């Protein structure tokens, strides 16, 4: 421990030496043979790392390559080039037998659960343990623990056909955790579930992450999933990562067009149709300029619009907006209209407060 950091008192001491990430992809490419035999690049030069105990969300449209990407982590797919290091081992270079062994420390859950219909909940959870050669008594103890962890102790003898979607995914999670993995891969695990069930599954994953310190890598096409549990996010498009970083930063200051389009549907970012339909690029005489303001961190809850009116006598028209919390930090977006003549003054004023501004256009 570094003695100079002692004054932090009871706060956890930050390690100054960067810790080796538990999952690291180095210049990973995946090239498939296309229909006509010509090579198709599914993933190109992916660099990605996940710290132990973190939750990384990978978001992309269907066909962006996220499925292939997550399957590289447990070796279900082999990269055409590059290295995939999980817990110190190069997954892509392991012989079959060691790879199977390594997979016991990488759990995986699936969109369609992939439970055996011929086995009960308890028997499904027991399967990875049977495969790993645990004895009967150890299997029973572990299965009981896992059923309790996911809240399904009373459903142990039910077949998947007798369970709801959310319950099936809980069985899936318990099965993935059976061999005490260090990493959990989630392949669109909530995409087949309704919003309320999605919420409860995400809560369970967040709890497992917090309590067991399990690293989670998830892929999704829903920004809401990333917002609710991920700490890091990577946006993938056309087989390449176009943006990555802290969820709060990416959500509040999206740099890439694809990220913006994912965020477009988020509450407060979408313009109401009556504004959107009238929006034009050129200023209109006597019209208003439409500005999007992003609030982050300390200023998120400041009454800036009131001050704008008081200090500069500029009256802003609120067109859309929301205040929210991302990764535990407050943030918000509002879209306002101000008279064209006051545009420069307004932007200067807002920038003073450290707010992000974006002129969306003009309306009459």
């Amino acid at each position, binding site marked *: 421990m570094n003695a100079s950091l002692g004054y932090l008192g009871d706060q956890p001491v930050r390690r100054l030496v960067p810790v080796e990430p538990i999952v690291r992809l180095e210049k990973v490419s995946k090239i498939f043979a296309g229909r006509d035999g010509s090579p198709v690049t599914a993933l190109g030069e992916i660099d990605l790392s996940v710290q132990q105990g973190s939750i990384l969300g990978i978001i992309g449209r269907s066909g962006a390559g996220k499925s292939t990407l997550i399957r590289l982590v447990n070796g279900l797919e082999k990269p055409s080039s590059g290295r995939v290091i999980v817990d110190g081992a190069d997954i892509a270079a392991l012989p079959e037998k060691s790879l*199977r062994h*390594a997979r016991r420390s*990488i759990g995986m859950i699936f969109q369609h659960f992939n439970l055996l219909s011929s086995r009960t909940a308890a028997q499904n959870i027991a*399967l990875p343990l049977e*495969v790993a050669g645990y004895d009967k008594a150890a299997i029973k103890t572990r299965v009981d623990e896992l059923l309790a962890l996911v809240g399904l102790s009373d459903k142990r003898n039910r077949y998947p*056909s007798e369970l709801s979607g959310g319950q099936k995914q809980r069985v899936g999670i318990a099965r993935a955790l059976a061999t005490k993995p260090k990493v959990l891969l989630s392949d669109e695990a909530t995409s087949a579930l309704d919003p309320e069930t999605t919420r409860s599954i995400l809560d369970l994953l967040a709890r497992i992450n917090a309590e067991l310190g399990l690293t989670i890598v998830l892929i999704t096409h829903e920004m809401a999933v990333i917002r609710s549990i991920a700490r890091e996010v990577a946006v993938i498009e056309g087989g390449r990562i176009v943006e990555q970083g802290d969820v709060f930063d990416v959500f509040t200051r999206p740099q890439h067009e694809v990220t913006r389009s994912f965020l477009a549907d988020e509450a407060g970012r979408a313009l109401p149709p009556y504004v959107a339909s009238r929006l034009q690029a050129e200023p209109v005489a006597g019209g208003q300029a439409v500005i999007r303001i992003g609030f982050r961190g300390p200023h998120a809850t400041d009454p800036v619009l009131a001050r704008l009116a008081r200090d500069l006598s500029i009256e802003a028209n609120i067109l859309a907006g929301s205040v929210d919390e991302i990764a535990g930090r407050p943030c918000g977006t509002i879209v306002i209209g101000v008279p064209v003549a006051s545009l420069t003054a307004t932007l200067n004023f807002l920038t003073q407060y450290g707010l992000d501004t974006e002129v969306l256009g003009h309306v009459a």
Partner: protein
Amino acid sequence: MSPEMIRLIAASTGETLYMVAVSALLGTLFGLPLGVFLATSGKGELYAAPWVNRVLGAVVNAARSTPFIILVVAIIPFTRLIAGTSIGTNAAIVPLTVAATPFIARLIESAIREVDQGLIEAARAFGATPLQIVLKVLIPEALPGIALGLTLAVVSLIGYSAMVGAVGGGGLGDLGIRYGYQRFMPDMMIAVVVVLIVLVQLVQSIGDRLARRLNKRIRHA
């Protein structure tokens, strides 16, 4: 119907059941691994061996497209080698098994191909070996389909076993031809057909019930 006729029918029914049971058993014994292999040896599959798969597939198709009565005659030397004779119930088991094996293999292959690929992926993801995937995932999940397939195979074997009667194989077919046809005893012919119908119905309903019991995909009230 005379007691003598009843005794004949009972004895022939016993022979038919014996031939069908033994050949179904042997056919499953050979057909199960063959079917599993056919279902898992395609390109990119668990035991990927596309060439062997293609060759075995062609052999299976050839065996299946040979009319049974021709198969019986064609493999007489092989039957003699195995059973020591080409006449009688035991000898009949040889061509019945030879016909049943590729048929059962195809039925098992298709039952296994019905299993959701996602289950194989899940099993690979938690570190199962190909053999574990076959034994713990594919076969248990395909069991309802396998039960229905085997039922179909047994019903077909009942039909085939009547055919081996034509070449001295014994059983109900033999009885029907020798008494019903050659000795002009229509009541014997009718009795044989009735027994065969009852047998087939029985096998089918037992098989259906078994498949339903094994199928956990449907909720049972």
